């Protein structure tokens, strides 16, 4: 403590002189007024007091004397203008960057001997540290607070008012997604550069993505002093990293759900995956995952007439939920996309009416277009736009070039030099269909055992191919998956068999179409939280013709926001998982509404491991929070004067109640 006003000797002299005067006045005050009364005997009877009360009266007078000395000492000290030592150091400008990514919602590490607080998160620890840093600011220090989430926000601008800084920390909660530390640290650096004593303090759990780790290292290595305080904890976490659903073309009351669950912890974990539609459970599956394991689960044939689904991870019955980690990644949303008809092209010479009829009865989920076999090359628009092409050349050779997409070939090797993707081994006469892959969906409810075929071609199967039909062990129908598409080749022409006359034929054709339709990756109407991203309205099932803006709402009660649409593309930024609803404001689809699911869906964001462990030791901020400054508001002498005035008021109030005098 230093005196900036009067010197210590002057203050002491003033106090001594004042104390002497006060003491003298008190001694004089001890002489009582003499009052003459006519009936002292009666007064004596009334005012007779005990010795104890006399002692208290003396003490009371002593108390009054002490109070006066206290007032004098406060005034003398105020004249001295005392200042704490911390006020004498150089002023500093501190930028506090608080990581508010999803991982900050994870549990914090507990110090030894401290009872575990399951509700305390890493962000709570970071906020506690931020408040301690604000409390330690001196009167000439300044600070600002930056929140680093998927979006960067300045919670409190640069200033020295602790209450304004503390208000900025109120209601700060983790947000889904990764923190954009690069932008946050750049903003902090720009704010403090050029100021007195610039300093950046990053409060994080270290669970950052590659870009974040790189930004932190750049900050630490930069010219501005940058310290990192980490609040790590248990990395145990299970997350849903993918969730999608689609409706079956053949049964529109049912949906198929894909969910990907990842165990990001260091120990095996069991979890229950539940899928709900409108709050009602429609499917559940218990999973056990090894550390680091990711499982893709497909829940088939789920009854769901509604189009909005929610997947949740819950702890198995009787188990604690601690290993589930932050709750933001334990839930995911999906919107069942509208069913689009499958575009099917039939390249034929027009002689196989059975095949055409079998395709035509598939109803409204197949758009069938016929193409002459000679024109069914890859560059034919009908072929190029089709999802699936049936090649039924009959007595004609296959055209060249063939498209690289899903295709079904009937007897592709009637002529040598065929461009068919599956090679031939040999030709056989009157092949018997001796074996078939009964469990394959293409052959469901189909029996080909006694089908008569006049001639056929044994196909050359490659490793990984599925041999659907075999003749005495040799492949007669092969299904091949490749990066260019799925190819199904039958080594015989249906026209040269009695298969079209059987009920199995239309079932086989329907199975083929259904198989390829299911294998077609349907559009998943979901976007991850985070940065603004372009979305084509047409892909969401909303015709964008003439639409210039859409109204976006997160919930029933939330106020809508208007997002402009340009060339059918809207740029959206989602911050919280859930369902967004988009309504066309104008254009041809004015008033039409579609739903869009938003999920965290990021293994990096859900990973709670500290990735900043290799930072240099100098970059680590002290583990203990700084001690609060004695006073953040100066000068102190005003406080002393207030204290003196307060004591005077107290003495005045008590005087009239005879407490102190």
């Amino acid at each position, binding site marked *: 403590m230093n005196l900036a006003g009067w010197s210590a000797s002057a203050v002491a002299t003033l106090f001594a002189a004042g104390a002497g005067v006060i003491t003298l*006045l008190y001694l004089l005050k001890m002489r009582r*007024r003499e*009052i*003459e009364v006519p*009936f*002292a005997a009666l*007064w004596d009877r*009334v*005012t007779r007091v005990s010795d104890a009360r006399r002692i208290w009266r003396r003490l009371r007078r002593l108390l009054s004397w002490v109070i006066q000395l206290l007032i004098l000492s406060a005034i003398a000290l105020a004249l001295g203008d005392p200042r704490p030592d911390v006020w004498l150091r150089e002023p500093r400008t501190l930028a506090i960057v608080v990581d508010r990514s999803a991982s900050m919602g994870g549990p914090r590490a507990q110090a030894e001997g401290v009872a575990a607080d399951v509700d305390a998160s890493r962000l709570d620890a970071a906020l506690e540290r931020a408040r301690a840093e604000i409390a330690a600011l001196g009167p000439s220090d300044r600070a600002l607070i930056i929140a680093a989430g998927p979006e960067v926000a300045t919670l409190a601008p640069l200033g020295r008012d602790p209450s304004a800084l503390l208000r900025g920390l109120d209601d700060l909660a983790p947000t889904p997604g990764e923190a954009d530390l690069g932008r946050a640290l750049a903003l902090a650096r720009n704010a403090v550069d050029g100021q007195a004593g610039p300093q950046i303090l990053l409060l994080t759990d270290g669970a950052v993505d590659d870009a974040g780790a790189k930004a932190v290292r750049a900050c630490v290595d930069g010219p501005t002093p940058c310290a990192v305080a980490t609040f790590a904890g248990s990395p145990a976490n299970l997350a849903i990293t993918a969730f999608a659903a689609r409706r079956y073309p053949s049964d529109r009351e049912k949906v198929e759900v894909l969910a990907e669950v990842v165990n990001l912890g260091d120990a095996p974990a069991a979890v229950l995956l539940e899928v709900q539609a409108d709050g009602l459970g429609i499917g559940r599956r218990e999973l056990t995952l090894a550390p680091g394991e990711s499982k893709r689960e497909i829940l088939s044939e789920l009854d769901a007439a509604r189009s909005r689904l929610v997947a949740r991870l819950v702890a198995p019955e009787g188990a604690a939920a601690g290993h589930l980690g932050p709750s933001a990644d334990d839930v995911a949303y999906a919107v069942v996309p509208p069913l689009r008809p499958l575009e099917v092209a039939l390249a034929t010479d027009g002689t196989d009416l059975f095949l055409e009829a079998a395709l035509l009865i598939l109803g409204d989920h197949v758009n069938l277009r016929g193409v002459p076999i000679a024109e069914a090359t890859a560059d034919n628009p009908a072929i190029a736009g089709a999802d699936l092409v049936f090649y039924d050349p009959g007595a004609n050779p296959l055209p060249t070039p063939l498209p690289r997409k899903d295709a079904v070939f009937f007897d592709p090797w009637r002529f040598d030099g065929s461009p068919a993707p599956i090679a031939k081994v040999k030709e056989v006469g009157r092949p018997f269909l001796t074996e078939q892959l009964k469990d394959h969906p293409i052959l469901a409810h189909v029996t080909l055992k006694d089908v008569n075929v006049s001639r056929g071609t044994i196909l050359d199967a490659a490793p990984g191919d599925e041999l659907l039909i075999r003749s005495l062990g040799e492949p007669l129908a092969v299904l091949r998956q490749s990066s260019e598409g799925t190819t199904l080749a039958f080594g015989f022409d249906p026209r040269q068999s009695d298969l079209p006359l059987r009920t199995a034929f239309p079932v086989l054709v329907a199975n083929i179409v259904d198989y390829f339709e299911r294998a077609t990756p349907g559009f998943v109407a979901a976007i991850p939280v985070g940065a603004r991203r372009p979305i084509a309205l047409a892909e969401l099932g909303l015709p964008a013709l003439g639409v210039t803006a859409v109204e976006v709402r997160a919930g029933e009660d939330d106020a809508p926001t208007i997002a402009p649409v340009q060339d059918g593309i809207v740029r959206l930024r989602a911050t919280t998982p859930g369902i967004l609803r988009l309504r066309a404001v104008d254009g041809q689809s004015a008033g039409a509404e579609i739903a869009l699911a938003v999920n965290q869906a990021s293994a990096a964001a859900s990973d709670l491991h500290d990735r900043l462990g290799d930072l240099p030791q100098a970059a680590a901020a002290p583990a203990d929070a700084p001690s609060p400054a004695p006073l953040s508001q100066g000068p102190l002498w005003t406080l002393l004067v207030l204290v003196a005035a307060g004591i005077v008021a107290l003495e005045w109030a008590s005087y009239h109640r005879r407490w102190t005098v």
Partner: protein
Amino acid sequence: MGVFARLFGTAAPTPAAAAEGELFDEAFLARLELLQVVARRVFRGRTRAERKSRKVGSGLEFADHREYSPGDDIRNLDWNVLMRLGHTLIRLYEEDEDLPIRIAVDVSASMQSRGGRKLRYAQQVAAALAYVGLANLDRVGLTCMSGKVHATLPAVRGKGRIFRVFDFLRQAERGGPTDLRAACKRVAAESAQPGLTVIISDFYDLDGAFDGLNLLRFRKHEPIAIQVLDPLEVRPAMTGLRGDVRLVDCEGGEAADVTITPATLKAYAEAHERFCEALAQNCRSRGIPYFRAELDVPFDELVLRMFRLGGLLR
């Protein structure tokens, strides 16, 4: 009270004593005349200038019979009884006797507190009573008494003697402690003939306040008590007195250091009221007329009240 006096603890000045002026001025005499007229109206129809003694003697009013004894005046023999019953009985009559009125004024120091307002009031009451008595042809004597002073004006008769009464009251010595027991004892001893004795005092004597009155009663006097009180002494809260003070008895004695609080003032007022009520109760129980006179009641109003309530004149 000023800051200087508060700091240095000087004694509180007594209330304006300078306003005393002439004790018995023309206005006072006019009020006495008026009082005498009113008093005469109050006692109209009664025997004037006569106070019946309890002696049986040669009066006119029949009192009793007694056996005849030789030497009795046979004119008093009740012939009717003798003729009817054969008994010789002498008729007895109440003897008319001229009983003196003695007015004793307490001139102790307590009566002079706060500028002597109480003593002045007591002197005016005494003068008024004396005037009415003299006007009724009574013999009126006065005594100024305290523990130190005892001055007596022998009984005088006639309205013209009132100025001697004034002079006596004006010139009598004052001061000394209150000692009613000793003073009353001396009054009784000085009186050759018991009579009506009016004691005018504040009775601020914890031990002997009533004893003096009782002693007079035993000596065949007919005492009347008039307690003169200053309202500011009865209810000291009206003075605004507060704080640590040293209480000094105006009649001397050990000083007491006390802290005056509202509670203390209230306790004193209650104790004072109990003291006065005990004195009044003692008087009532023994047939002694008791009058309480506070200074804010004019003296002539007090005297008239005494006349109306009776006890002073018969």
